[in-house]
C-alpha cells in the first residue's frame, strides 16, 4: 500500500530535482488588527515530514488551516505542486480562487484536528467510508474495503462498528487519522492531534503517526507540543514565533544545538514544564 520509503523521499540527491510540493511566498495573514503570519516564506519537498513548533499564537496552526482552505490569506501566494492555491487565472487575470478551484486543490490535502471532529452519527467504518463515496464517487464496497484497510493501519479493526462516543479520545483520533488517510492525500496536516487527549492516551496516537512517517511517502506537516515526538517524526523542524520562522533545521540541529537564543529559551521552558 505505501510506496517508497522515507529515505527515498528525502534523499538529498533527489531534492535538487524535485519541485516543491508546498511553497509559501511572502504570505501574510491577519485577523482584524492581529497579524498572525508576517511575510512568511517556506517550502516543503515531496515526502518531507515537517514539525512546526513554537509558543501558542505563533501562527503554526494558521499555516495548516490555510493549506486546508479553512482560512484565506491576506497577502502573498501559496503554491501546491506549482499551482496557486488561493488564486487562479481567469480571462488572463489573476483573481481570487473560486470555490470550484479550491475544491480541486483541496483534493490532495487531508487534515486531522485537535478535537477529532468525527461525525458522531456515523460508526467508525461509516466515518471513513462516507467521504470516499461522496467526494471520490467510489462504490460502497470499495470504500468499505479501504476503510477496513485503514482501520487495520491504526489498529482499530475490532472497533469498526463503534460510534465515536463509544470510543476513547485516543481511539477517536486514530479513526480520524484513518478517515483522512483513506482519501489518499498527497499532503497530510496534523493540528495538535494529541492536545485534547488524556496523558495516558497520547502515546497510542503518536505511535501511529511515527509509523506513518516511517512507512509512507505522503508529505506531512504536524503542529505539536510533544518535543520527543517531533524529534522522531520530523525530517525538518521549524521554530515559529510571532508569525515568523525563527529557526529551521534537522531535529538534531533544533533540539541539540539550537543557534538562536529564542529557540533555546523556548525549549528550556518546555523541558522544565513552565510553558
Amino acid at each position, binding site marked *: 500500500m505505501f510506496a517508497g520509503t522515507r529515505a527515498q523521499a528525502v534523499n538529498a540527491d533527489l531534492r535538487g530535482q524535485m519541485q516543491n510540493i508546498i511553497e509559501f511566498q511572502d504570505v501574510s495573514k491577519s485577523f482584524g488588527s492581529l497579524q498572525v503570519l508576517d511575510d512568511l516564506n517556506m517550502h516543503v519537498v515531496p515526502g518531507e515530514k515537517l514539525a512546526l513548533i513554537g509558543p501558542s499564537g505563533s501562527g503554526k496552526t494558521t499555516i495548516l488551516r490555510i493549506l486546508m*482552505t479553512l482560512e484565506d490569506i491576506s497577502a502573498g501566494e501559496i503554491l501546491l505542486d506549482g499551482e496557486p492555491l488561493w488564486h487562479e487565472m481567469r480571462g488572463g487575470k489573476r483573481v481570487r480562487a473560486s470555490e470550484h478551484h479550491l*475544491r480541486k486543490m*483541496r483534493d490532495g490535502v487531508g487534515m486531522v*484536528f485537535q478535537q477529532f*471532529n468525527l*461525525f*458522531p*452519527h456515523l460508526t467508525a467504518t461509516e466515518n471513513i467510508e462516507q467521504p470516499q463515496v461522496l467526494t471520490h464517487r467510489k462504490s460502497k464496497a470499495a470504500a468499505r474495503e479501504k476503510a477496513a484497510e485503514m482501520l487495520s493501519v491504526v489498529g482499530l479493526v475490532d472497533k469498526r462498528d463503534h460510534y465515536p462516543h463509544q470510543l476513547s479520545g485516543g481511539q477517536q483520533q486514530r479513526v480520524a487519522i484513518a478517515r483522512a488517510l483513506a*482519501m489518499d492525500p498527497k499532503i497530510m496536516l496534523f493540528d495538535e492531534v494529541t492536545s485534547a487527549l488524556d496523558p495516558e492516551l497520547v502515546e497510542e496516537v503518536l505511535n501511529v503517526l511515527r509509523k506513518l512517517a516511517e512507512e509512507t511517502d505522503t508529505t506531512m506537516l504536524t503542529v505539536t507540543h510533544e518535543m520527543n515526538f517531533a524529534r522522531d517524526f520530523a525530517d525538518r523542524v521549524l521554530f515559529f514565533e510571532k508569525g515568523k520562522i525563527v529557526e529551521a533545521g534537522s531535529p538534531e540541529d533544533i533540539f541539540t544545538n539550537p543557534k538562536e537564543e529564542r529557540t533555546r529559551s523556548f525549549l528550556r521552558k518546555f523541558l522544565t514544564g513552565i510553558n
Partner: protein
Amino acid sequence: MEWSWSVAYDVMPRLAAGLIVTVQATLVGALVAYVLGLALAILKMSPYRLVAWSSYWSSEFVRRTPLLVQLYFLFYVLPDLGIFLEPFAAGVIGLGLHFSTYTSEVFRAGIENVPKGQWEAARSLNYSTIQTWRHVVLPQAIPPMIPPLANYLITMFKETPLLAAITVVELFNAANIYSNSHYKYLEPMTLVGTFFLLVSIPAAALAIRLENAFRRKA
C-alpha cells in the same frame, strides 16, 4: 341549563367529520411549517447580508401579526388580486406560514448547535455545500429539534378553530353551525373541548417523553 344526551348524540357525527378536517389541517399545516421553516432558517443564516436581513424581517413581520388577520388576507383579499384559494388550502397555507416563523427558530438553534469543527471536517474531506448539509449537519441537528417541533404541532392543533373564520368546517365550526341552527350550545361546545383534550393531552405526554429521551441521550 340541562345536559341533553339526545343533542349530544345528534351532533356527534358532524363533530367526528369536523375532527377529521381538524387533524388534516393540523398535519398539512405542520408539514408546510416544517418545510418552510427549514428553508427560512437556512436563508436567515445566509452569508449574504441582504438575504439574511430580508428573510429575518419578513419572518418577524409574519410572526408579529395575528394569524386570524393573515387568514382573512389569504382568503378574502387575495381574490382581489386574482388569486382564489379553497378555504382548506388558504387555511393550511396560513397556519403553515405563520408557524414556519416559529419553527425556523427551532431549526436555526439546532443547526447552530452543530459544532464548527463538523463543518471544518466536512470541508477538509471536500464535501460540497449540499453534501455537508445533507450528510453532516442535518443528521446531527434534527434529533434534538423533534421535541420542540412536536410542541408546535400541538399548538397548531389548538389554533385550528381560527380556520372557521374562513369557512373551513373543522371541529369547532361543525359544532358552531349546529349550535346556531338549533340554539344548543352546551353539548356541542363541551364535546368540542373534550375532543381537543382527548387528542392534545396524550400528544403532550408523548412530546414530554420525547424530550426526556433526547435529554438522556445528550
